[in-house]
């Protein structure tokens, strides 16, 4: 196997470096300044760059390679990325929060700069020249006056270790001189994927591998009553029925045999109602025990609210959403005694390897976790759980096992984006100024990563203890505060200790839901004040970058300044709405304008066009960025218009694409993107920010078209009709 080559690394490097180290706890991993942890100059003229982050389908593999190529002055074809492997790459914790370009990108840029300096010094000695007389082109350093005197990176360093730390505050290239970063470098993975080459964990195979499917309980909390192995008598290829407490899986020679065996196996479960009735979800969320975080308490809200000439109040509702990856989770595990190799599409190879070690009670360094790309996950889907399932099954049969989740496994058992309730109060004075603002959100934690076996489905089934307790809370505060300059304001997050449904990270965490509420309510205030929605927002935004984003979106969308609603009463009502967000209050800045047509008879909403203006500082790859923004916009529109996880008191009822429909080609609007490049500003992540503004822009456009205010996601025809009447 290719990864065995790393074992030859000198002991001194391995001790100083952080690859494969035993501690695997920290969310963002462990920083390493050891140059060789990040870069290797190979003797064949290529460069290997190591990142502890992983490719989740957003194109970061290419973006990171661009950064390395730029800083090191080699062509991008020479850069080989190795990502997310616990024996080869640094521990960078989870790939999350649009942080890959910030963190891994910065580390690789610094490493590239340090390596380039060392290579230049070596070249100066080798060529008997001064540093300032040297030039580099595609990894070949030559003397400017005498280009025949030259030496390549490979000749200088090929196969050798730098044995040095990356200096602190190492100078890096001026972004004005960039030749690779900032260009639309084509993604390296697309040619493989369109040609049907092995690209995904689902395509991954090892010799002698068996196949497996799970037999999950019909509901969370169900207990196994009986299992009848003999029901599989006569079925071909059955290697083993693995049952440990409530965990059941079947391992077979061939994949279709596993499917048949899982369907055929006679199992009796005792179910109990563990969920609130769906129609009581939001009252349940409001009534549960909370831990309250007072994020902002500024000025005197109570007095200002009391004295306001207009008092407005609204409550917004976000249901549970599924990540709904198009390819159900899959993993391959090979457990031989206490040595474990796992191939999985986890967003956190190091943390998961630590958790799997606990699950199997082996030292963490015995678990070699290798990330292989999966279908887009947009946060935490079932991939970590599938890895644990595969490990248990492989351990039981002592052979490599490929476990493929079914569509229903994914829908029922993946952690959902949490349901939330957002309540906003706003006071206006006689001139329509916002004099009081109070924002409260009730939410379970948005992050419940698998730091311990109890947070994995397998761990819960093995112990018989379904756990929805998190131990810590995170994510609901994201974009709960706005960037508007309100004088008297309060922002409070009420964390609900136990989520009715298992929940974890989905793109932007609470950012999308909070922005839906904040930006819908801004629109409600603007309408009440009789003011244009763009002008109303600009009043409270002194920052020039933010103002430019809003103005750009409005002007590209052909925004006509006027108050909403537009006040015509056609059956097909047209309207436009805007929403703005400054992601995490200091990251990328986004504004979206939606144009909608509402059929006021049927309640059907057709979104015709969405215009997005986007400022994420220095742009690394404009085409990749557009791809992300387009994807964010369409996916978040799907969530706003159609998506809601259904359940009753016993079971999750969204089990397939019919019970959890997503946006189809016929429903996708035009999306126009306006990028604002800020070459002198730091490059900020773009995987999430533009997912936040769509729902409010559409709700505001529906209001503009019809005067009906949608405060509950999704905006189904029934809800639109109810709001109209």
């Amino acid at each position, binding site marked *: 196997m290719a990864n065995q080559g790393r074992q030859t690394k000198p002991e001194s490097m391995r001790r100083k470096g952080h690859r494969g180290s035993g501690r695997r706890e920290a969310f963002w991993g462990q920083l390493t300044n050891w140059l060789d942890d990040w870069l290797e100059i190979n003797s064949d003229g290529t460069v290997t760059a190591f990142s502890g982050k992983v490719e989740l389908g957003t194109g970061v593999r290419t973006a990171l390679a661009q950064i390395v190529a730029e800083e090191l002055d080699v062509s991008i074809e020479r850069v080989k990325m190795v990502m997310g492997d616990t024996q080869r790459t640094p521990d960078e914790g989870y790939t999350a929060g649009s942080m890959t370009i910030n963190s891994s990108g910065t580390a690789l840029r610094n490493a590239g700069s340090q390596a380039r300096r060392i290579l230049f010094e070596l070249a100066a000695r080798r060529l008997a020249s001064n540093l300032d007389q040297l030039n580099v082109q595609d990894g070949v350093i030559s003397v400017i006056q005498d280009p025949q005197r030259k030496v390549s990176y490979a000749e200088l360093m090929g196969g050798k270790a730098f044995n040095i730390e990356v200096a602190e505050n190492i100078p890096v290239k001026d972004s004005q001189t960039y030749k690779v970063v900032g260009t639309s470098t084509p993604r390296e993975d697309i040619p493989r994927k369109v040609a049907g080459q092995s690209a995904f964990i689902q395509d991954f195979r090892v010799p002698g591998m068996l196949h497996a499917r799970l037999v999950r309980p019909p509901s969370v909390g169900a207990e196994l009553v009986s299992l009848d192995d003999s029901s599989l008598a006569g079925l071909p290829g059955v290697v083993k029925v693995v049952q440990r407490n409530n965990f059941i899986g079947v391992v077979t020679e061939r994949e279709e045999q596993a499917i048949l065996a899982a369907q055929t196996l006679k199992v009796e479960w005792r179910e109990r109602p563990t969920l609130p009735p769906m129609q009581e979800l939001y009252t349940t969320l409001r009534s549960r025990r909370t831990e309250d975080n007072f994020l902002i308490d500024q000025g005197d809200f109570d007095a200002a609210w009391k004295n306001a000439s207009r008092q407005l109040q609204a409550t917004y509702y976000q249901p549970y959403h599924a990540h709904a990856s198009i*390819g159900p989770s899959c993993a391959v595990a090979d457990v031989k005694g206490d040595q474990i190799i796992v191939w999985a599409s986890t967003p956190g190879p190091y943390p998961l390897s630590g958790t799997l070690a606990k699950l199997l009670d082996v030292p963490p360094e015995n678990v070699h976790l290798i990330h292989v790309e999966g279908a887009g996950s947009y946060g935490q889907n079932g991939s970590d759980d599938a890895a644990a399932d595969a490990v248990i099954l492989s351990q039981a049969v002592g052979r490599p096992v490929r476990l493929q989740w079914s569509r229903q496994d994914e829908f029922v058992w993946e952690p959902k984006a949490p349901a939330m309730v957002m309540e906003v109060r706003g006071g206006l004075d006689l001139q329509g100024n916002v004099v009081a603002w109070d924002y409260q959100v009730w939410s379970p934690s948005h992050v419940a990563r698998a730091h311990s076996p109890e947070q994995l489905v397998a761990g819960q089934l093995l112990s018989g203890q379904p756990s929805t307790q998190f131990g810590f809370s995170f994510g609901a505060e994201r974009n709960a505060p706005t960037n508007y300059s309100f004088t008297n304001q309060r922002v409070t997050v009420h964390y609900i200790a136990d989520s009715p449904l298992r929940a974890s990270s989905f793109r932007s965490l609470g950012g999308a839901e909070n922005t839906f509420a904040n930006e819908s309510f801004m629109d409600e205030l603007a309408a009440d004040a009789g003011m244009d929605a763009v002008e109303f927002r600009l009043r409270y935004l002194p920052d020039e970058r933010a103002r430019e984003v809003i103005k750009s979106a409005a002007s590209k969308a052909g925004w006509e300044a006027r108050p909403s609603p537009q006040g015509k009463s056609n059956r097909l009502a047209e309207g436009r709405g805007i929403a703005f967000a400054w992601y995490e209050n200091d990251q990328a800045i986004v504004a979206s304008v939606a144009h909608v047509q509402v059929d006021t008879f049927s309640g059907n909403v057709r979104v015709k066009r969405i215009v997005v203006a986007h400022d994420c500082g220095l742009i690394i790859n404009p085409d990749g960025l557009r791809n992300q923004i387009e994807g964010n916009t369409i996916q978040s529109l799907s969530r706003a218009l159609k998506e809601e996880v259904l359940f009753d008191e016993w079971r999750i009822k969204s089990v397939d694409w019919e019970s959890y429909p997503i946006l189809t080609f016929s429903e996708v609007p035009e999306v126009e993107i306006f990028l604002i490049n800020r070459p002198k500003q730091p490059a900020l992540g773009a995987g999430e920010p533009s997912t936040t503004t769509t729902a409010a822009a559409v709700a505001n456009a529906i209001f503009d078209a019809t005067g009906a205010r949608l405060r509950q996601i999704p905006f189904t025809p029934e809800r639109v009709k109810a709001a109209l009447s």
Partner: protein
Amino acid sequence: MSGEIVITVNGKPYTVQSAPGTPLLYVLRNEIGLNGPHFGCGGEKCGACMVLIGAEPKLSCHLPVSEIGHARITTLEGLIEEGELHPVQRAFIEEQATQCGYCVNGMIITTAALLWKNPHPTDEQIRTALDGNLCRCGTHLRIMRAVKRAEILISGKGGD
């Protein structure tokens, strides 16, 4: 029971080892070792498992291998001729029309079939043809642009 069924995949005959009721998808992936058609839902609802049977795009996740008969099966891999990518595949690269790319198999198969039947489809015809193919990443508009580019590549206007 096994060994009786022969199917033609990407121009080559294969003797099927699986039981006759086995869905075509698993024969293609696990016996022939192909990666193009993907398991997405197993319920014929998402399009990830599409292959061409003759010139028709078909879902392979339920279709028993015994029902194929003499029809010629073409997968994503089989669209490549003598090492040359099919114009639809080239168009998807040129438009960078994937995000995660898991669904791209079905998108390309559907597009290839559409453009054979209808070399110059309208936007609405493209959308309708692709409505059975789900994409979660939101790459729809790029895919639409890739279809348009493929149309040009095939008709020779922009081809090489």
